């Protein structure tokens, strides 16, 4: 099965950029991605620019509407994702729990819908 792991955290949670903790944090992500690849579980994964760079788009009466910022205001923001392939939710939970941000944020694990 394929699972989307959506990585959420509060803006000021976790190590601050420029600190030694932050470089450890980045290193942990590198190792984590490598681990997924080695297991054959990695499909895709990216970090996102902060939510201040977001633009919300919709179509209304044939016109494209754009607004600054994210669609929903929440304390915890989407910061990145991994798309993984594994046998069951148990494995997905185990892998999601190892995402470095899980230490201070939250990972939402969602199965990918398959149309057949």
């Amino acid at each position, binding site marked *: 099965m394929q*699972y989307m792991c959506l990585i959420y955290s509060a803006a000021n949670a976790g190590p601050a950029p420029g600190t030694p903790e932050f470089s450890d944090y980045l290193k942990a992500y590198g190792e984590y991605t490598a681990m997924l690849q080695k297991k054959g579980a990695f499909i895709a994964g990216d970090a996102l620019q902060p939510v201040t760079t977001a633009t919300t788009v919709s179509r209304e009466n044939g016109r494209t509407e754009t607004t600054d910022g994210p669609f929903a205001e929440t304390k915890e923001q989407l910061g990145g994702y991994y798309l993984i392939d594994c*046998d*069951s*939710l*148990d494995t997905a*939970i*185990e892998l999601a729990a190892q995402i470095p941000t899980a230490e201070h944020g939250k990972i939402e694990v969602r*199965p990918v819908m398959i149309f*057949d």
Partner: protein
Amino acid sequence: MLPPFDIEQSITRIVREEWGRILAALVARLGDLQLAEDVLQDSVVQALSTWPAKGIPDSPAAWLITTAKNKAIDTLRRDTRFSKLRPELEYLAELESQATGAEELQTVPDKRLELIFTCCHPALEEKSRIALTLRTLGGLTTEEIAKAFLDKPKTMAQRLTRAKSKIALAGIPFQIPANDQLQERLNAVLAVIYFIFNEGYSATSGEQIVRADLAEEAIRLARIMHTLLPEETEVAGLLSLMLLHDSRSSARYGNSSEFIALQDQNRKKWNISKISEGTTLLKSTLKKQKVGTYQLQAAISALHAEADTWEATDWQQINALYELLYSINPSPVVRINQSMAASYALSPQKALEILHTIESDPAIQQYQPFYAARGDLYTRTGNHTKARTDITSAIKLSENTAQIEFLSKKLNAIPG
């Protein structure tokens, strides 16, 4: 010939007894809980319509599993939504061509453990875990579960459907968790079983009769778990704890269903065979030296069971066990329970001091037993004003009439 009512009762009893094992075997083969449940339910309906005339087969379980399997084959053939399950279909057809009978059930591997781990998966909402366990392992009907939890049958049906749908779509596996996850997942299963027991035993609300069934059901589930995982000491601990608690069930309520506290119970009404089973199991389990919270609570319950009178209770030992329990599980509820033992082992004043250490815990501000316990201690230390305030609070927080009557008597007995 038996009147139809009796045969229907026998069928219901057989179905309840065999449901979990058959369903688990079907899920293992079909890989789909909803399909397995549907075909088993249809087979039960067929049994109810044919058995009264033809008689109950020699092996009702074998009959049910064969019938359910045939229905599954039919469904899979008809329904294109199950195209992914085609290989299973071939397998089932192959099984179908083989001899089926009583001996077949003997060879059906017991998959109830896989099923209970699926139903108690932490990715499911807590109440759904409980409902699903009662439905799939216990064979209770949706209506019975709804009744026990004071829900509308429709609401309960929706809850069960949502849970089964999540199991299928989210890929919650039908398997015993890997070793490194087993303890945590086992705790989740035991919590569900103990919750079911307490709903039945404490009867905080709802119908008394349905409730007693829940306590029995929880014991039955724990027995299954213990048979399948005999080396897990906390499984045995929980079974022992529930047996010991349940041994007192007929002494807990008086003729007009008023609640009777342990102190005032007629100990002759305690069920000796349950006490003996619980105590024997506990003793052999404690020897394995893998102690846990259920075993400690069972040990406390066993000390109560061994005492001929309230006064003869080994309070020192009970107080020490609570201290140990608190060191593993530092919950204010443990302190509340300990306070009673400490009031006898030490003094009511010392017991109040224990309760003072947890007074500001937000978790107990609306917790009825806290006020009942402290009110009792204030009564015994002669602090009547505080006693009245606490027991009045406890009455306000009580959810059943038996508790309210019990506490009202206490309130009226406070001098002044």
